[in-house]
């Protein structure tokens, strides 16, 4: 099993290497002289030449790549031309905010999607199946920012059940930043009130992001449950008198969950770069919004970093998904692990 994980890790390294080459290439073919861009129009030609020399821009591409990769590995991603701060510190601030949000959204979509999927599949063609089908189609068809605005309006404005925008109220003193996750930082600082407030602020945006994934994952689980239910072994579990709840959430769910887990991983990575509409509605200081701003302002260093982060997210999530599936499905484990 360790061998399999090691192998997959090695594969991920190769993928990331390829990605870095691609990003480097794109960053270099974009028209415009990086040295000139850094210095501005007023700099003299000699100054530009000097900076070109400093930035290794006169060297061959492999040498340039080497220097680029070296600074990258040292955490030096350059300075953002828009925020005027180092890209690395921008990322350190924005990534945890988005991670907290989409982790929560993924959790919601997983739990709600699985439960509705299992019930709809088990009670196929019942009223529950019908209603969940209808709601799912609505959920898939409605853009997440529409859901976000609707939820914000109904729960925050009209019913006043949930707080509005942001991660915590402006009036609240934020805890010292350690992990960047507001809920975790609150706990670490021993301030439970922050954690609870942060959770309340998370609910609406996370749910807005989750809706479409609840619908999709629910449908996938339902299909897969219906398929598994026709297997002889499920029939025999019933005949042998195993409790219905156990069949439902153990024997039926586990073989059926495997396709959903794969989709869930992709959904998670997708949210990383596509949460910006919801982040905008809820004024969430997140990575996705940062990425969008960087693109709109042609902030090259930030764009490179953003693409890199998204690439790494995909590679990591896929690795994690593969490991989870290995635990869920012994056939994969026994075949790949050689144990």
């Amino acid at each position, binding site marked *: 099993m360790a061998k399999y994980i090691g192998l997959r890790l090695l594969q991920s390294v190769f993928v990331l290497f390829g990605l870095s080459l691609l990003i480097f290439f794109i960053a270099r073919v974009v028209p415009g002289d990086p040295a000139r861009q850094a210095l501005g129009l007023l700099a003299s030609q000699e100054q530009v030449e000097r900076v070109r020399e400093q930035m290794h821009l006169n060297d061959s591409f492999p040498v340039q790549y080497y220097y680029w990769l070296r600074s990258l590995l040292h955490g030096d991603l350059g300075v953002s031309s828009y925020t005027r701060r180092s890209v690395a510190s921008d990322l350190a601030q924005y990534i945890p905010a988005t991670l907290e949000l989409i982790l929560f959204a993924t959790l919601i979509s997983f739990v709600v999607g699985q439960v509705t999927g299992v019930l709809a599949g088990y009670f196929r063609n019942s009223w529950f199946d019908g209603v969940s089908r209808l709601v799912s189609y609505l959920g898939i068809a409605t853009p997440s920012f529409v859901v976000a605005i609707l939820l914000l309006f109904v729960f925050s404005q009209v019913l006043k059940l949930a707080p509005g925008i942001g991660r915590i109220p402006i009036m609240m003193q934020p805890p010292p930043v350690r992990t960047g996750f507001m809920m975790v930082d609150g706990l670490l600082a021993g301030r439970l009130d922050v954690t609870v407030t942060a959770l309340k602020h998370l609910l609406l945006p996370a749910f807005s992001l989750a809706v479409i994934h609840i619908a999709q994952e629910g449908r996938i689980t339902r299909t897969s449950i219906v398929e598994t239910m026709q297997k002889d072994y499920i029939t025999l579990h019933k005949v*042998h*008198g195993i409790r219905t709840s*156990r069949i439902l959430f153990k024997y039926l769910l586990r073989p059926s969950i495997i396709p959903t887990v794969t989709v869930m991983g992709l959904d998670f990575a997708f949210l990383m770069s596509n949460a910006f509409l919801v982040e905008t509605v809820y004024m969430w200081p997140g990575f996705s919004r940062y990425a969008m701003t960087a693109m709109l302002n042609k902030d090259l260093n930030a764009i490179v970093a953003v693409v890199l982060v998204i690439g790494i997210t995909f590679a990591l999530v896929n690795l994690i998904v593969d490991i989870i599936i290995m635990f869920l499905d012994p056939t994969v484990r026994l075949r790949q692990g050689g144990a």
Partner: protein
Amino acid sequence: MPNASLLLEIRDLHVGFRIFEGHLRVLAGVTLWVAEGERVGLVGETGCGKTTTVKSVLRVLPIPPAIVTSGEILYRGRDVLRMHRRALHVLRREELTAIFQDPLQSLNPVFTVGSQLRDIVRDSMRTPEGRVLSRREIEARCIQALEETGMPDPERIMSNYPIQLSGGMRQRVCIAEALSTTARLLLADEPTTNLDVTIQDQILRKLDRLVDQKGSSVLMITHSMGVVRDLTQRIYIMYAGSIVETGPTRQLLASPKHPYTQGLMASVPRLTGRGVSEGIPGRIPNYLEPPPGCRFHPRCPHRMPECSVEAPPMSDVGADQRAACYLYRRSPS
């Protein structure tokens, strides 16, 4: 005929499947019964509705597309088809058990053998005082059940996944699962068809001995004459969704009366004698438009005009032996 010790009784069961092309009329009046402690064989070629019959008794037919159009299934006099969900669950837990044809499909691939076996014992066994079994008692019962099937090293098997076991081992596990509890009626649906010939015999003998020890009743579904000869006291011959002949096993096999049974017996390959048997000409009917009257008449060498008009009733053709054929109808006197 039906008496006090009757365990299972199926009366004139009609089951169909609604599919896109129309209505498949698969079971056309199956009538059979199993007495307490009795071993009964149900024989017929592939596609004649044996499995549909078994699944109807267990109430595990997928409805839809399956649909029970008429008939009754009585277990100790209680109608299984009209049973409430809860009562049905208790019936399956305490009275019925089954072994299916394909051991590769019969075990959940993502759980260990032990996990499945333990849950069966945990959910369906109680102590005589009605108490739930302790963890240790469950474990002991599972190991014992595996040991009884002649499985070496049951502790290791418990921690194995089905994929790690051979077909024969998996079928032993299925037998252990089926017999781990106190069920009274075993429905064995071709339990050895998908196994190696060398293993078939071992498994059957094991099954036979275990059933003997527990005193369970058995409905053995098979298309193998050898299996029914050795393991059953009475058999039903099924053709295209209805019972064509029934009687004590040895007597019926020695003197088959229904033309279909005769053809079936003639098709059994023998080691002695000349050549390969010719089999029965024709093939099992299309259930979308089954032939009217006796469903066997298009293939029957003795066909008469009335055969295609109405299905023949059962007639006595020997001691306890009955066949559904106009050849044996009593002359009206």
